[in-house]
């Protein structure tokens, strides 16, 4: 399913997007190896703050969810929990080749193949793993997308909720987490 990028916002949404694009909080959820590229991006050398972006601790306060690399089925359950807790507008940025088609884990029994079957991805950043320069470039691209109204993954998720839920259940069996820490 391909996301369409037509701009169908009303004037208030345009104003809201203009302001939210300049102040993005990202939920930094480290799913895979790409998380190690985030500290240099956040700190003084590349300094994500000059794009107006900053890290945020909880999903309820965050705008962007980063999927930094491969996703095991166990992690995907937690990611779905986190994504559904976030307030809209919410965006997903996926890092590296693992989120596109499994990457080097294409035949793994524990990691998923393509991420956009389960969650709507607004932006892919290519690389294995992407360097901080690439990540900064991708984030400025995301800001442009939000300003133009192209980052509509969250609307797509609401409209096609059954399709996403069906894919999630087909691959995961059950999304409710029942491990020993949730008993």
């Amino acid at each position: 399913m391909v996301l369409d990028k037509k701009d169908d916002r009303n004037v208030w949404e345009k104003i809201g997007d203009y302001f939210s694009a300049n102040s993005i909080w990202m939920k930094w959820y480290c799913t895979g190896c790409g998380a190690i590229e985030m500290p240099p991006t956040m700190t003084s050398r590349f300094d994500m703050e000059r794009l107006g972006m900053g890290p945020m601790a909880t999903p309820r306060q965050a705008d962007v969810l980063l999927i930094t690399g491969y996703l095991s089925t166990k992690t995907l359950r937690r990611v779905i929990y986190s994504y559904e807790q976030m307030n809209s507008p919410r965006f997903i940025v996926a890092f590296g080749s693992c989120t596109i088609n499994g990457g080097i884990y294409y035949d793994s029994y524990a990691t998923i193949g393509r991420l956009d079957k389960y969650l709507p991805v607004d932006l892919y950043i290519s690389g294995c793993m992407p360097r901080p320069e690439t990540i900064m470039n991708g984030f400025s691209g995301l800001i442009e997308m939000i300003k133009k109204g192209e980052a509509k993954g969250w609307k797509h998720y609401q409209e096609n909720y059954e399709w996403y839920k069906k894919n999630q259940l087909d691959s995961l069996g059950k999304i409710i987490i029942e491990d020993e820490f949730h008993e």
Partner: protein
Amino acid sequence: MNKIINEIKIALEPLKIETPALRQIAVVVKPDAIHNSLAYFRQKGFTQLSIVTCIDWIKESELELVYIVLSWTEGIYIQLRARIDREKPVMVTATDIFPGARYYEREVHEFFGVDFLGNEDAAKPLFLELWDDIPPLRKDFDPQAYSDSKFPMRERGNEFVSEFGGNK
């Protein structure tokens, strides 16, 4: 080193004993002797259980359990090995000697299907949630087939072209 090897030979009567590398001793025993041997090593100062792991010998239809213990005073590793039946793999737990073996045994149970008698946690899932196939690190498990049946892949071609403005 030689003194320890001689002591092990007298005390445990192993099937085989060798030194695969510097400051390492490999001891092969019968599966019934694992618990006694671990108690013996613990009492001799090998206080750290570094890992419990398993090897699948599918042609011989056997699973080989490997316990690695370390002595901090001698600086010697001992690999304790024993082969058990592959169809009904059962082993006595080591948690009463080394409490930390609890999680290693859970891992071995999850990835190889070995039952540990006396470890109540051993059957709980540790890494894999809702696993519905044979234990995944056994040699007759096919990860590619499992992955294809569960996790659909992107079809190359149409979608790839359309992102660059081509026809869908």
